[in-house]
């Protein structure tokens, strides 16, 4: 039996990985095709936007590596894919010929700090609230919690951010509403810098995390509600387990299945979700880079970001599928 289930599990895993790879390939191809559809010679556009900070050599090199003199498919596609695999995402139009990969790497930490912290807080608070609400269904507290969570879930985080800025920054003056650091923060010691950075983090993190809390509460509550009516909970009760024992030994594991999936998937959307909020707070991360590139029609950067978004989403989905396979024996 061990051998048989192992074989089935392996086959299942293989299928998931294959699907992920196929999706990633489609992301890359879409990426490639999109930006070739634009009229005009990409290399010339590079020149026009770069304010002559790139040398002719760089343009020619880019032309060559993109294979612009060769037919679209398969040659250009192939050179695009191979260049990408080597980490060459091209040069930015707007940022005076800087490498796209450098730009992206430079901005990632700020986004990770913002989105990572927001997710952590949201998961802790949201899942706990949701589980409690779902286990003890009914009553005024449950209805209010669910109502507020639904409202938060439907609220655009960037709008929430703007409101927070108006309230806490403009009107009350407690917290900064712009950027990740105050000017002159570099001159204060480490502690001062950290505290300054922390103060700048509060509002943007709040903007992102409130919506996420709403989402986690709704999903966790629904998952727990479903579990509570299941037969094995009745069995547990018949066995004489206490409420806590029923919750932790039986309900929790089963309710967590959809919640863990959601958490893993959300990690893939971390960057995408941060885009609008970073724009509100001028937070120096990938999100604001996207907006800047959008406004400047800086296609190579957009292309690089889309690849990053697509890859992280596909990867997160892959992880979610694999983890679910580990948690739920019925799927293997």
């Amino acid at each position, binding site marked *: 039996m061990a051998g048989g289930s192992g074989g089935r599990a392996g086959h299942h895993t293989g299928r998931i990985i294959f699907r992920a790879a196929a999706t990633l390939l489609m992301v890359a191809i879409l990426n490639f095709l999109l930006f070739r559809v634009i009229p005009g010679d990409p290399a010339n556009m590079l020149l026009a936007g770069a304010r002559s900070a790139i040398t002719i050599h760089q343009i020619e090199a880019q032309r060559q590596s993109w294979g612009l003199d060769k037919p679209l498919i398969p040659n250009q596609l192939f050179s695009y894919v191979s260049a990408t695999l080597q980490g060459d995402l091209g040069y930015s139009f707007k940022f005076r010929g800087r490498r796209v990969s450098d730009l992206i790497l430079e901005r990632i930490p700020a986004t990770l700090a913002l989105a990572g912290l927001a997710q952590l807080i949201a998961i802790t608070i949201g899942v706990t609230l949701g589980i409690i609400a779902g286990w003890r269904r009914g009553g005024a507290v449950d209805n209010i919690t669910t109502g507020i969570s639904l409202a938060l879930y439907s609220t655009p985080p960037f709008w929430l951010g703007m409101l927070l800025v108006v309230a806490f920054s403009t009107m009350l003056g407690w917290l900064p509403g712009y950027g990740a650091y105050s000017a002159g923060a570099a001159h204060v010691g480490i502690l001062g810098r950290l505290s300054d950075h922390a103060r700048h983090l509060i509002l943007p993190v709040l903007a992102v995390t409130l919506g996420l809390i709403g989402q986690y509460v709704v999903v966790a509550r629904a998952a727990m509600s479903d579990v509570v009516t299941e037969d094995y909970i009745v069995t547990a*009760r*018949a*066995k*004489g387990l206490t409420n806590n024992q029923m919750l932790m030994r039986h309900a929790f*594991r089963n309710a967590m299945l959809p919640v863990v999936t959601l958490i893993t998937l959300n990690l893939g959307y971390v960057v995408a979700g941060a885009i609008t909020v970073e724009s509100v707070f001028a937070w120096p991360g990938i999100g604001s880079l996207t907006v800047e590139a959008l406004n400047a029609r800086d296609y190579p950067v957009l292309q690089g970001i889309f690849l990053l978004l697509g890859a992280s989403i596909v990867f997160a989905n892959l992880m979610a599928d694999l983890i679910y396979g580990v948690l739920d024996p*019925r799927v293997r």
Partner: protein
Amino acid sequence: MNSAFPKAAAAILEVVDLSLDYKLANISLPALRDISFQIHAGEAVALVGESGSGKTTTAMTVAGLLSPNAKVTSGEVRYRGKRLPISDEEAMRPHRWNDLSVVFQGAMNALNPVQRVIKQIAEPCSLKLGMTRDEAMRRARELLELVGISAERGAAYPHELSGGMRQRVMIAMALACHPSIVIGDEPTTALDVITQAQILKLVTRLRKELNLALILITHDLSVVAESCDRVMIMYAGRIIEDGDVAEIFENPRHPYTRLLIESIPDPTEGKRVLKPIPGDPPSLRNRPSGCAFRTRCPSAMDICAVEVPFLEIEQSGRVACHLYSAGSQEPKVKSNV
């Protein structure tokens, strides 16, 4: 053996005038009325009836597993002479599984799908009997052996087992804390006939070995004939007849019982004529006045609409029907059945 008169050995379970309501928004629906019976050690009693007759509710109430909107309006349940706190979760907990356990339909989701079955069997051993992990696992293996499942199969998840095996697991689990009474909630309903027979044989054997009392909920009279000593027929929340299995089958008295027995298809009859009982059982909201069965009863009389028939104690059991009055064995009026 007369079921109604007090026996020399005291009953281990006694239900006295139990009545139960379901509370919805602003109304109370009568689920059970005046349920009274006794169970003795090692006895197998069947609770038979159509869906909605209250058989499951009765058994679940006895086990203290009331649903949140159920309310006991009168009567009580006594275990070994002492009152069982069926409405109090906290107080009921020590009795659960130690004194009474339940075997649910294995085909349903009664087993935790993400936990290996041997662990689920070991759970009450460690939580309720205070065994260590190893002791509990050892006992779980013993129990699995008792029901004929190997230790390797025990490491499986519920979905990897067949319906019959899951049922055995449920039985093994139910015996974990040495209960005196086991309640079987339609344990063989979802199984094929062959598996059903195996399970019934297993249950009967275990019962005799461990001197267990069994309350078997079922709608299948053939199961009753196989494995039970006594049977109680329920209709619309009341017991309308009870007695020894042999007596009930040979000489059913209540018109409903008669129709039930006659509706069992008899393969020896020349023509394949099925005789279902006409009509449907009343819903909780629309119980007829007086005797609830009168709307479908071929022998209904005027009095049946007015008075609820009292559960008369007869020589060979009890019956609730105006056709019979206390002490007589023959019906007062010639029945039309």
